C-alpha cells in the first residue's frame, strides 16, 4: 500500500496559518506529497512534519487521485478526505502519470481545484515551469528540497 500516513508531534510554535479542522480535531495542515522516489518521499515528509504538518505520501499519481477521491470510479463526495487536504506537492517526472497530468486532474475537479498544488522537479526547464504555472500550479520548486523551500510553502496553505 503506497499511500501511507505519518503521525508526528507538532512543534510548539506553528508557523502555518490555521488549517481546516480534521475529523479528529487535528488543526495541522494536511499535505499530500506525491513522488515515485522513496528517498525523496522520506525527505519531503520530514521537512513538512518538522514544520508542523500532517503528511500523507503517495508513490504515484493514481494513488494520489485515489486518496483524493478523484479516481474515475469514485463518487464525488464532499465528505471525502480529499477536501481536507490543504496542499498537494508533487514531483513532475513520474512514470504513468506525470505531476503535470496530476495537476490537470486536480484543477479539473470542482471540489479540489482551489487546493494549492506545488510541482517539484530536479530539472530547471523554463517551458516545463511555465506549463505548470499556466495550468494553475501555485509554485515550482527545484529539487533537492531544503528547509528554505518549506518556508516558501507556508504562505500557500489556507
Amino acid at each position, binding site marked *: 500500500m503506497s499511500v501511507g500516513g505519518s503521525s508526528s*508531534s507538532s512543534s510548539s510554535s506553528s508557523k502555518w496559518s490555521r488549517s481546516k479542522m480534521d475529523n479528529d480535531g487535528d488543526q495541522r495542515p494536511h499535505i499530500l506529497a506525491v513522488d515515485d522516489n522513496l*528517498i525523496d518521499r522520506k525527505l519531503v515528509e*520530514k*521537512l513538512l512534519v*518538522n514544520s508542523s504538518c500532517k503528511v500523507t505520501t503517495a508513490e504515484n499519481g493514481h494513488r494520489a487521485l485515489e486518496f483524493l477521491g478523484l479516481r474515475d470510479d469514485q463518487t464525488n463526495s464532499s465528505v471525502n478526505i480529499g477536501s481536507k487536504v490543504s496542499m498537494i506537492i508533487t514531483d513532475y517526472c513520474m512514470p504513468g502519470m506525470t505531476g503535470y497530468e496530476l495537476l490537470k486532474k486536480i484543477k479539473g475537479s470542482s471540489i479540489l481545484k482551489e487546493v494549492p498544488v506545488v510541482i517539484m522537479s*530536479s530539472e530547471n526547464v523554463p517551458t516545463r515551469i511555465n506549463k505548470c504555472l499556466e495550468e494553475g500550479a501555485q509554485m515550482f520548486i527545484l529539487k*533537492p*528540497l531544503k*528547509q528554505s523551500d518549506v518556508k516558501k510553502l507556508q504562505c500557500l496553505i489556507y
Partner: protein
Amino acid sequence: MDAVHLKRQLITFTEQLFREGFLDEQFNQLQQLQDENNPNFVVEVVSLFFQDTERLLDELSKALDQANLDFKKVDGHVHQLKGSSSSIGAQRVQRTCIIFRNYCNEKNVQACLKCLQVVKHEFALLKSKMETLFNLEQQILAAGGPPSI
C-alpha cells in the same frame, strides 16, 4: 578514546568528505532535520539510500546486459539514482549519474557500461565512508558525548 577526541576526529573526517566532494550542502540539510523525535533520521535515510541504490545498480546491470538494449529503461534507473543521490547530498554519485544520462541519450553502450562501473565504484566508496562516519557517531554516543554535529 574519549568523546572530545572522537568528536574532533568526526569533524575532521566529515570536513574531508565535503572537501573531496563525497558529500555536499544537501547532507547538512539532512542533519538539520534530525531532532529528538527522530534521532536516527540521517542513518535511516542514508540506509534506505544504500538499499535503493543497490537495487538500482542491479537493475542497471541487467538492463545493460540485454541484447536489445532499452536505453529508456536504463535512463529511467539512472534518473532515479541521480534524484536520490542529489536528495541526500551524495555529490560524486550524482555527478556520475549526470554523465551516465548523457551517454544514455547518445545511445553509447560502451560508455554506459563504463559509467556503470564508475557509479558502482563511487557508491562503494561513499558507503564505506558513511559507515565510518556513523561508526564514529556511535562511538561518541557510547563515550557519553553529545549527539552528532
